């Protein structure tokens, strides 16, 4: 605990403090999280970060989809008529709204569930000493590396052939960095070893999500493919 006290820095507030926390979550998550835990930050800032980061990702995906569909639907013109096609193309602009909302909802669900799984694992399996609320707040900052994903998506939209490879590298970096932040958050929050934190924050949630995906796929295939074989 002495080490932890020694890394505590002077609290900063306002927009500068916000920028410091954003950068700190990337550069020095251990110290940044310790400071935040000491100051008992609210839930609104991490919630805001998740909504903004994933909302923008959803919007970019939607816009990207519209830009692909807009002209590629031209083949429908002789079938449904030019006027109907134009109306249909105009209606495509609802797509970014749908993707934005669904991305946010999905991210919020993943946020709450992942923190829940990590909490159960760190608290009850590894006998850590943190709380779910505290971890939920720290987990919100794990969305910061997705700024790299956003950058990659923008570059890909600008020129697919040139920037697609770079975007993939940025995405991999973002995933790796997110895992690091999640591990540090669990380690800080529950004061457990990094290996235990890695299992709690990454391995167990990954297993749970894979199992859920397999279950959903089984249900889906039995319903749909079963229906087709009638």
């Amino acid at each position, binding site marked *: 605990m002495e080490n932890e006290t020694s890394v505590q820095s002077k609290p900063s507030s306002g927009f*500068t403090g916000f920028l*410091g926390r954003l*950068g700190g979550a990337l550069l020095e998550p251990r110290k*940044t999280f310790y400071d935040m835990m000491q100051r008992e930050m609210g839930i609104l800032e991490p919630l805001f970060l998740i909504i903004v980061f994933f909302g923008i990702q959803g919007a970019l995906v939607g*816009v990207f989809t519209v*830009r692909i569909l807009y002209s590629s639907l*031209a083949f429908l013109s002789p079938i449904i008529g030019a006027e109907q096609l134009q109306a249909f193309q105009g209606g495509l*602009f609802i797509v970014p709204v749908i993707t934005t909302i669904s991305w946010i909802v999905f991210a919020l669900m993943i946020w709450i569930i992942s923190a829940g799984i990590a909490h159960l694992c760190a608290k009850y399996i590894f006998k850590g000493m943190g709380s779910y609320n505290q971890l939920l707040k720290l987990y919100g900052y794990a969305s910061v590396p997705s700024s790299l994903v956003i950058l990659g998506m*923008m570059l890909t939209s600008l020129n697919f052939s040139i920037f697609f490879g770079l975007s993939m590298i940025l995405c991999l970096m973002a995933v790796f960095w997110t895992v690091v932040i999640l591990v540090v958050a669990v380690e800080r929050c529950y004061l457990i070893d990094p290996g235990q934190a890695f299992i709690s924050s990454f391995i167990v949630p990954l297993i749970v999500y894979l199992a859920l995906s397999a279950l959903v796929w089984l249900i889906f295939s039995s319903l749909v493919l079963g*229906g087709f074989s009638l």
Partner: protein
Amino acid sequence: MRANIIIGGMIIVILLASVIFTFASPTVLGPLIKFEEDKAKVTRTYSFTSDDAPGVDYINLNFTVKAGGIDINFTDDSSLIYMFVFKQDEGATKPSIENITFDSKLLVNVMAESGDVKVTFGNNYIYNGTLRVSLGGITVKLSNYSNIEFFDLAAVYAGGVSVDVEDDASFDHLNIRVNAGGIMMHIGAKTLEKNSSISARVELGGIVVDSIPKGTSLGSRLKAFADIGGIYLNPGNYTVISQTVNRVEIGTENYPTAPIKLDIELFTGLGGATINQPFFLAFPTSFSQEITARYFLE
């Protein structure tokens, strides 16, 4: 701490840029996939009138476009025999057009390697013949100015044929063939000039008949057969004459007594047919809806 603030600032800049990008990119960058519409096109117009072939009343067409589209229309211009407006890429081979007159008949041979052609016929001649694209599409609008004995419309390898039949159209028979692709029929006519028939055949693909004509003087009958695939039918107010898993026959109540009859025959090899359905309902989202016949690979 200073480094954190700088990195945080950079993240905010990325976020702000992405918000601006999201709103601006559809209009500034435009569609991601751009078709080569802007490529320079050459327009070539060929027309033939009664002055060029006096005494002719019957036109026999042999019209081939290897890759491209044919759009066929009829006008009320009684002196017009044909007008072909070709739009081709710069440098594309010119179409070859040959007119041969014998007695009161005019044989028109047209051959084009590529391009889109708008074909306009007059209302004072009887038309007969074959119009084919090897790869591409054909659209035909049969208005009350049409006067067709027999048209064979073919997408030889792949493509589509769209037929629109309007009130008082005059034709004996339309034969529509597509190897791989689709056929779309919109029959909005409540009346026709004479007994007419349409045969449509798709080896691999689909046929959509979005409505079936039903007029007081017009009796209609439709037969559809899918070898491997399904028929998605909305019988509406029409009488179902017979129906099996892959064969359907429907007709209007007045068909036996109607003075003018329209017979439609549809065949799909591997694929499906949708009949009397709005286009966006044509491809079923729920297989429990009004399916009268279906047959899936087992």
